[in-house]
């Protein structure tokens, strides 16, 4: 009996997601990949960078590339306002910042609560969507950060 319960717990791990807003949708990313959340300060443009790269910031002596998540997801750009935040994430051994409209809360989910949903989002964003979950009657789109960029694009992130 105890063994069966243990097996159930192990097969349905709990995941914590940091949630953020883009346009009208709420997205979640694995909290283990989030280093910190910053208010938007000066982002220096980088000549010749891809269109989804907003620029670079100096984070305690380190140069961090900032991605415009809206552009990356195929959404129209938006003005930066007081609610905008840069989430500093680590993926594929690279540290980058992603600009979002706002950051919400940390949500606890079980893996079983995440359903695969091939029709969520547009064509651009669907590549990065790991699945969807329902929380307080709202849809939460779970993003696979590792697929946000290709291997080559990830490698370029440190070269700006």
């Amino acid at each position, binding site marked *: 009996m105890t063994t069966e319960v243990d097996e159930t717990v192990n097969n349905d791990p709990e995941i914590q997601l940091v949630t953020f807003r883009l346009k009208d949708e709420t997205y979640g990313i694995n909290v283990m990949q989030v280093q910190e959340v910053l208010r938007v300060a000066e982002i220096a443009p980088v000549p*010749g960078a891809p269109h989804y790269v907003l620029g670079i910031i100096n984070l305690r002596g380190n140069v961090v590339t900032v991605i415009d998540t809206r552009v990356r997801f195929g959404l129209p750009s938006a003005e930066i306002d007081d609610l905008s935040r840069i989430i500093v994430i680590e993926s594929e051994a690279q540290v980058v910042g992603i600009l979002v409209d706002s950051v919400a809360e940390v949500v606890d989910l079980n893996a079983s609560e995440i359903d695969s949903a091939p029709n969520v989002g547009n064509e651009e964003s669907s590549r990065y969507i790991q699945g969807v979950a329902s929380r307080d009657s709202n849809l939460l789109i779970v993003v696979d950060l590792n697929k946000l960029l290709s291997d080559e694009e990830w490698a370029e992130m440190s070269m700006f």
Partner: protein
Amino acid sequence: MQRQAEKKTPRETTLVESEEAVFDLLESLLQEVDEKQPAKVETTVETKQEQQTDQQTQQQVKPETETQAEPQTGQHTDNVKIFEQLPLEMQERLIAQATEELKIKNSLPEWVEHTIPCLLVDVEGVEVAVPLILLSGISAWDQETLPMPTQPDWHLGVIEYRDENVVIVDTARLIMPEKITQSVEERRENHASHFLRVGQNQALSCNAIIETISLKQDEVRWRITRKARPWAVGILIERLSVLLDTEELLKEINAK
């Protein structure tokens, strides 16, 4: 002011070079420790000097090179012993760090020295650092510009500068074409305020001269691989400006 620097070809890091780099790093770290404990170091040095004096008085005169080589070999052996006693994780970290530093060192253009005097300029709102060693002149752009037919859109025209015909290059069009929506004629009519003389007969346009600074190598985040944008050598960490290799930019122009 300008010199024709030979481009340094990046080469693969060998295992021997990696090991040497690790030991150089260890040596520098040990020197830091020694500097913080001056009394101990002096005692050690004196002891070594006393030993060397004793050896010299007991033996025949040795060639100077041999005498100088002995301490270095001994130090290297000590470094090996120290390194081998470190935890494996630390050994791996040191090797990775030293390898990275070696890769950076091998990728640097030849004009990079310990300090790099640079001119900071504004190019369409973007701050760019240009090494002074690559410049042969800086001037306000108030000369008449002669447009040349059938030229690419970065070619803004020819001016007379110091009795020479100089081609003015639209720097912004080259390094951030996505931001330039004006036509060549519009760019020429409302042209930038200054130009920087580079190469044999070319000059890079810029909107303003900001200031001169002296950079140290560790104040730049160097780009190890530069397949894309080879003219962007690195980023100034404090100011987040791009450090421009004008030689690479000219190669790009001349190849077009």
